[in-house]
């Protein structure tokens, strides 16, 4: 049964308040946990607005099939996949072209952060499952995948934080929902490595002047900085609570 959703006329009102009550420069509420899966070497879970995404890391381990192994470093593999029930209209479990492209760009965003050269001939496999989607899933995926890598004890140059910004109803906004992405003028997902102060994922679709592009880019980087803070807190939190409980 196909159900149609009536798209609202306006996504942002005259007072610059968005449909979900946020200001233009506000992130959706975020909740992150690490080490939640028993079998994976590392894992993490994020809820960002209505997004619910799980990431698991296996490795470094023997590469299968063997002929894919690299002689001088670990092979970083990444699979971004959406559960059939993650969106309104059931999505077929087979990988779509979008999932294949996103798997590629997500892998490329994480690679500069991992010391792959320490473990030649092995593979580090990252699996991302989107359980519920509401826009900005590739960014939330990168945020949670980099935590899963850290949770697996894989040496990293830095964590990677990701966030999207864009243009909706003529205004520049941070962290777009699915509705805002579909109804807006531009969407710009971005991933950022704090140490290098450099961008490892950048895509844009829509229409922006160069000036707007610069402002949107900077807005997304600022969003990433906030998310990086949350990532650090989450990694430390597990150990701090035990320390506090036990040392009185």
């Amino acid at each position, binding site marked *: 049964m196909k159900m149609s959703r009536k798209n609202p006329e306006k996504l942002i009102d005259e007072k610059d308040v968005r449909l979900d009550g946020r200001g233009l420069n506000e992130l959706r509420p975020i909740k992150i946990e690490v080490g939640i899966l028993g079998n994976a070497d590392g894992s993490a879970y994020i809820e960002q607005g209505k997004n619910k995404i799980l990431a698991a890391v296996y490795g470094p381990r023997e590469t299968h099939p063997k002929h894919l192994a690299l002689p001088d470093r670990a092979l970083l593999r990444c699979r971004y996949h959406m559960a059939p029930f993650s969106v309104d209209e059931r999505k077929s479990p087979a990988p779509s072209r979008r999932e294949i492209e996103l798997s590629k760009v997500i892998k490329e965003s994480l690679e500069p952060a991992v010391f792959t050269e320490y473990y030649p001939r092995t593979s580090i496999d990252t699996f991302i499952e989107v359980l519920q989607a509401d826009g900005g899933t590739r960014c939330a995926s990168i945020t949670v995948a980099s935590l899963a890598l850290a949770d*697996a*004890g894989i040496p990293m140059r830095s964590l990677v934080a990701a966030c999207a910004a864009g243009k909706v109803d003529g205004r520049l906004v941070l962290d777009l929902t699915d509705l805002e992405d579909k109804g807006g003028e531009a969407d710009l997902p971005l991933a950022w490595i704090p140490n290098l102060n450099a961008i490892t994922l950048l895509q844009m679709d829509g229409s922006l002047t160069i000036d707007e592009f610069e402002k949107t880019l900077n807005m997304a980087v600022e969003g990433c900085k906030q998310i990086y803070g949350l990532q*650090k807190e989450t990694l*430390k939190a597990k150990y701090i609570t*035990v*320390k506090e409980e*036990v040392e009185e």
Partner: protein
Amino acid sequence: MPTFYEKREIVTPGDLLAEDDYVAGDNTYKEDGKIYATRVGLVQYEDRRVYVVALKAFYVPSIGDMVIGKVIEVGLGSWLIDVRAPYPALLLASDVIGRPFKPQRDDLPSILDVGDLVIAKIVAYDRTRAPLLTIREPDLGKIERGQIVEITPTKIPRVIGRKGSMISMLKQETNCHITVGQNGVILVTGKSPKNEQLAVMAIRKIEEEAHTSGLTDRVTQMVRSEKGGIDENVSKES
């Protein structure tokens, strides 16, 4: 001499730990004169060296390490052993039999089969080949009985304790023989399953609270109070 954290503070990958003429120790890297953490852990500053005691890391083989592993494959003249490292380790038939391997005479699965556990030592390892094992020293060989506990390898030093204080206490209090593999695998053999369980519980507690202080006392307390219900039939031997 700029450093940025208090001793034993928890740091995360990418945190700037020190600058200028510090030396980058374990779980750190240096770039443009700055030293950063590569793993989540407790930062330590020692003289001019900064390092991180990682809270979680997988085992990387090191020559001389004693490890406990499981046979995953029987090959022609050798066994492949899973030592919980990124690379499976190799145990040659000639090492176990004591002379060159003869396929017509020697049936490898009857010596060690898939699923068997062994205590072994790493004799060779470099990044181009699989780590090589030996079981030709005393206290090494196939494991016949006992219980296995797997913990993250970075916590093994805590299980041993300063000058062996923690592990001696555990052996004494639980009356078990405890073999600690550097790869995070620990073998516990005791007179009774209850004793073994006690040792396992203690090890798990150490793993969970490894980053806290006053641990040895707390573990000793826990073991003693749990022992209350166990049969006090202590063996007369040593």
